[in-house]
């Protein structure tokens, strides 16, 4: 009751007021009931006997995990707020709680105004239904009334640019068309508060611009937008304010440039690494990750080129040092570039300088990674800089764009991270190529959503 009196005194121009929000998951128990068919069969056979025992075991095994804790946030009407943070920092949980998909464990949110959230493009699209039918279905799922959809129907169709295929089942659509239609429906929701997650990560660049434009005009019309994205540039250009979520808490909240700068700098180890040995003095001053266009970057798409730039100061000449870089995922090492193996060692390093290494077309699934570095002396016995994390990055992107469409796609985060391009040859003579590379040849092979088997 105390709380509600405080709530009512909060100023009326707050669109969203979040107070002490927390969300707890019980990991063990979730897993026990969600292991798919094999598990279910096993359970079905054992269930009558093992029921009591299993429940007890589950209780013991389950561990608590706070995806969000003590989050408080005020968002004013008309504000456009970007939410940044690494994979698993709690951004998605925050959005899910705000969109009422899941209930908070503690705390309270007050939302003033009609709210719509867009956590995925094309939620509820049915493959067998035509574009026209899906517009109605999807619109209704997103909370539009039938009358509203009918009123906006022509606009939606025009925006999606799929007029001629309106009566074709969407399973025959290319992924581009599919995404365009789906975004078109979502873009014509007309809420006062809009919550958007990663929507811009899909579709071709032209369409992405169009979506950004739509979001921009939405923001300019004085409505409140909460925008979660890995695309830091998009956040910078759309939002005035940013919130950085880390480990389920708000790490920083403020002016967009400031927050993004500190968020990005968190991706490299800021303290210089110095040599521990007395007889050679080497300092790694900075490790920077860059994308294809040489810009500093911390989020890459699968198939991007990733350049690691190591800046150093060697106070005395170091002969033929051995440098090794490693890309480490949460589940273990992925790949390395190791001079000890390839033998491309510099003759010497001295003074200030840079060494760059570009990993081409990183075949990594959307997960979090770190870059590890080790420097050894010529005789390879003496370690100048021991193997350690020097930078962090995330891979983000919509795997559907790479032709992925499995039922368990949402568990890609738990998969082994490296995907070497592969080809299935099925008994009926079809072949299907799978790759995280963006090369045209592969893209053509994977092509439209259902034409993967060619």
């Amino acid at each position, binding site marked *: 009751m105390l709380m509600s009196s405080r709530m009512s005194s909060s100023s009326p121009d707050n669109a969203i007021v979040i107070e002490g929000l927390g969300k707890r998951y019980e990991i063990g128990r979730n897993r026990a009931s969600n292991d798919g068919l094999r598990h279910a069969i096993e359970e079905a056979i054992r269930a009558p006997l093992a029921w009591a025992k299993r429940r007890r075991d589950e209780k013991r095994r389950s561990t608590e995990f706070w995806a969000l804790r003590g989050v408080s946030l005020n968002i004013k009407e008309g504000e456009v707020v970007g939410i940044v943070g690494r994979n698993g920092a709690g951004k998605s949980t925050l959005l899910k709680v705000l969109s009422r998909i899941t209930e908070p464990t503690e*705390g309270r949110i007050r939302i003033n105004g009609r709210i719509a959230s867009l956590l995925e493009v094309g939620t509820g699209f049915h493959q067998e239904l035509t574009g026209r039918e899906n517009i109605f*279905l999807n619109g209704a799922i997103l909370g539009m009334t039938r009358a509203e959809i009918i009123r906006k129907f022509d606009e939606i169709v025009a925006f999606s640019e799929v007029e001629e295929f309106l009566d074709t089942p969407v399973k025959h659509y290319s992924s581009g068309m599919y995404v365009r239609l789906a975004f078109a429906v979502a873009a014509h929701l007309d809420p006062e508060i809009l919550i958007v997650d990663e929507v811009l990560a899909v579709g071709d660049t032209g369409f992405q611009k169009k979506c950004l434009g739509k979001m921009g005009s939405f923001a300019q019309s004085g409505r409140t937008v909460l925008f979660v994205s890995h695309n830091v540039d998009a956040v910078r250009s759309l939002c005035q304010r940013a919130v950085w979520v880390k480990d389920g808490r708000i790490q920083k909240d403020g002016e967009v440039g400031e927050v993004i700068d500190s968020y990005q700098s968190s991706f490299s180890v800021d303290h210089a690494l110095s040599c521990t040995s007395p007889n050679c003095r080497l300092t790694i001053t900075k490790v920077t990750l860059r994308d294809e266009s040489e810009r500093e970057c911390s989020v890459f798409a699968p198939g991007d080129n990733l350049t690691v730039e190591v800046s150093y100061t060697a106070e005395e000449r170091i002969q033929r040092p051995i440098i090794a870089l490693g890309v480490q995922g949460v589940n273990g090492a992925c790949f390395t570039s190791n001079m000890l193996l390839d033998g491309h060692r510099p003759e010497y390093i001295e003074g200030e300088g840079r060494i760059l290494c570009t990993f081409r077309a990183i075949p990594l699934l959307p997960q979090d990674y770190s870059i590890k570095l080790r420097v050894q002396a010529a005789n390879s016995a003496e370690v100048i800089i021991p193997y350690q994390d020097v930078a962090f990055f995330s891979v983000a992107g919509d795997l559907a764009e790479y032709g992925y469409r499995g039922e368990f796609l949402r568990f890609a985060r738990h998969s082994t991270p490296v995907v070497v391009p592969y080809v299935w040859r099925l008994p009926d003579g079809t072949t299907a190529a799978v790759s995280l590379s963006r090369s045209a040849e592969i893209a053509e092979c994977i092509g439209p959503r259902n034409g993967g088997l060619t």
Partner: protein
Amino acid sequence: MATGAAANRSSGLEMSVLIIEAGRTEGQYWRDLWRYRELFFFFAWRDMLVRYKQTVVGISWSLIRPLLTMAVLTFVFGKLGKMPSGGAPYPLLVFCGMLPWLFFSTAIMESGNSLVSNSNMISKVYFPRLTITASTVMTSLVDFLISSVFLAGMMIWYRVMPPPGVVLLPFFVLLVFAASLGAGVWIAALMVKYRDFRFIVPFIVQFGLYISPVGFQSSVVPERYRLIYALNPMVGIIDGFRWCLLGASSSIYAPGIAIAAIGVLILLLSGIWYFRRTERTFADVI
């Protein structure tokens, strides 16, 4: 704590205040259910559209299935088993029993899977989840109605005139609908957490066909077991259907109907209670 959509008018748009917190109050949910009532019809419409896509005979399946089942049951119970039909043509007797039974069995199978097969939606967008499960029961009702038309044709063919009791038929339709919804929401909610029900439900359906009086009249059950037999609510419902449609040729067991009505009510209310209780964690568990 006060929760609600306090409506005040500002700049021509309806402003609503929404409060989200642990243990959200019920009022908001039922209001939402009303607000999303159109979605309920959209889901039913989608399931209907999709159901017979890429099938050769399409909607005829909703007739072929009951017809073949009727033929088999008539042969087994009527011809081989020589069960009494109480004066009515045996196929008609069987079809009257099958109408509610097939509705119930398809409804619980489809609605049991409804949440799991829409898991993608559940983890990405909010709407009262009850709409999905209820809409699948609605879809089964359409099959039921198609079969009903066929039954009417059969009755004309056999020149059987329904008794005055036929006016009570809507009550029994309502009863079987409530039974299906009640069992459906129970199974749907349980299935989210325990996929075991994927195996249990077909078993219930298979078993139920024989322990419910679908292929025979419940009057063949010895008098002293009637009360126990009536604990299966489908017994009262099927008896009711026969009584309404075939009249005197089928005996009515009044306590059985009462037990069925009470049982169905309990099933439905407890089902909704359990569904509501677990609904808030669907997105986390599914």
